């Protein structure tokens, strides 16, 4: 529909410079420039390296997205940008660029939450989100169960990780196995060749008295490290594929079990999974089986929309335009530790000028 809001979204919270353009629930462009290769030898994302790459990539990525969408910048109804959470210096590049484009083009600016964007992106894949939406958000920085009665204004945390994020666990295990960074895709590949039942790794916080919706992945990490080191000390070859498959099975087992319980307890008939770890093939297949068994409708976007991108920011921005949310002010700050409960950042409400 031509009267749906046309919004450009900018995402620079970590190592991907993402610019997406949507019209309502329709994806028009998803341009991403990644600096991941520059971080690999450091074993993790280096904030300054990421920030420098964002500055270089920003304008070319915007131009690429506009070209891909076949729209003129002047036709946009708004500019949305990730205001947090994420790396402070990296966020600031995107926020500053968004302000300048919004101001120069005379368009409203929407500072939005990265985590809420990971949920809202599913509107591009499966249409309007149910209200409330139950979401399992799993990435390199976050692992949470969220209940969102309104994705633009009301997102509640049911539980979250008490130590490492799920994606972090994949990175650490990849390091133990000597598979490099980032860990998610490489563990997924190795696991396909291995036996998921070869080793029974611990399932954190799944005891009857443990909190139902919180996660813990430090235990499974340590168990993997012990197992691998013992083998190496004995001079026995480490069965990388079996370790990868068994580790992945333990993590996805806990994630899906708790997510389905949260749906049941809250009387919700569907489960949305978002964030970079939602690109994991075993998490997707296990969630599919278990949701089918539980009579739940599963909503997971295609893998490219699960990892960080600008389209998800545009999707949430478009929803805000559609709901007449007040735009952010020009003094909008980048907030590295923005809580998930704040989907929209209004700014300070007044400029100093």
């Amino acid at each position, binding site marked *: 529909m031509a009267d749906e809001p046309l919004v450009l979204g900018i995402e620079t919270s970590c190592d991907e410079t993402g610019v997406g353009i949507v019209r309502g629930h329709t994806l028009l462009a998803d341009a991403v420039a990644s600096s991941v290769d520059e971080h690999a030898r*450091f074993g993790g994302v*280096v904030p300054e390296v990421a920030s420098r790459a964002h500055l270089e990539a920003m*304008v070319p990525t*915007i131009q690429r997205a506009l070209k891909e969408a076949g729209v003129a910048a002047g036709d946009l109804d708004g500019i949305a940008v990730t205001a947090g959470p994420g790396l402070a210096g990296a966020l600031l590049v995107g926020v*500053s660029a968004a302000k300048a*484009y919004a101001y120069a083009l005379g368009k409203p600016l929407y500072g939005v939450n990265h985590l809420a964007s990971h949920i809202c992106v599913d509107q591009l894949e499966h249409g309007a989100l149910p209200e409330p939406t139950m979401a399992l958000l799993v990435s390199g920085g976050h692992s949470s169960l969220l209940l969102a009665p309104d994705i633009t204004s009301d997102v509640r945390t049911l539980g979250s990780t008490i130590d490492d994020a799920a994606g972090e666990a994949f990175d650490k295990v990849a390091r133990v196995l000597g598979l490099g960074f980032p860990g998610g895709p490489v563990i997924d590949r190795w696991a396909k060749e291995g036996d998921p039942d070869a080793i029974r790794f611990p399932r954190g916080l799944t005891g009857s008295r443990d909190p139902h919706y919180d996660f813990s992945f430090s235990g499974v990490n340590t168990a993997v490290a*012990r197992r691998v080191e013992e083998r190496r000390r004995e001079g026995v070859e480490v069965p990388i594929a079996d370790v990868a498959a068994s580790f992945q099975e333990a993590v996805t087992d806990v994630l899906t079990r708790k997510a389905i319980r949260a749906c049941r307890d809250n009387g919700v008939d569907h489960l949305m999974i978002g964030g970079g770890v939602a690109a994991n093939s075993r998490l997707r297949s296990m969630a599919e089986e278990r949701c089918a068994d539980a009579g739940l409708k599963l909503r997971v976007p295609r893998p490219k929309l699960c990892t960080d991108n600008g389209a998800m920011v545009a999707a949430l921005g478009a929803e805000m335009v559609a709901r007449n949310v007040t735009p952010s002010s020009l*003094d909008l*700050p980048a907030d590295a530790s923005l809580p998930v409960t704040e989907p929209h950042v209004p700014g300070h409400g007044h400029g100093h000028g």
Partner: protein
Amino acid sequence: MLLLAFDTATPAVTAAVHDGTTVLAESTSIDARRHGELLMPAVDCVLREAGAELDAVTGIVVGVGPGPYTGLRVGLVTAAAFGDALGIPVHGICTLDGLAYASGIDGPFVVATDARRKEVYWAHYAGPRTRSSDPAVDRPGDIATQVAGLPAVGAGAALYPEVFTDIRAPADQSAGALAALAAAKLAEGEPFENEGGLPALPLYLRRPDAQVPAAYKAVLPK
């Protein structure tokens, strides 16, 4: 000619509008931690005060550093975005050159800004428009003989009075001065830092702080 100038490479968040002859409006606030929040309201403020429409601006002038990176990038990405959105050129000028121009000192002097970590960004000048050394980042003690006895401009110099003994004004960057320098350069066809149509690139002068991690740390006791 109507220039919109700003610089975020120092604790000064400064913006100005210049018509090729004179500064029509200028706003400067000193806050080393809030470049991202302060810049756009400052730009909005000077455009309103100058009574200028953004569409009438013919060029963006931006200080390209050297300066602390996080703040520096705010100005540079803002300039790049304005240039792209408005379809106008972005002129990059070394931040130290703006301070030198504002000082008006005839004869040899130095400009120094705070590089944090007990270092300064600095350069030698033969006159207000003549830089005679490449911008560098050093510990003041290590350049004491090179700057001995010379007049010194910039808040970085004032931090180390034992090295920079002849402190002169100004201490802080002024986008008005930066714009005036750009207007003079444009009038005379002098090149900018980003000559050749390239985007204005930051003068970082340091590599990112990043260590390749040490060998894998075992979980099991030895």
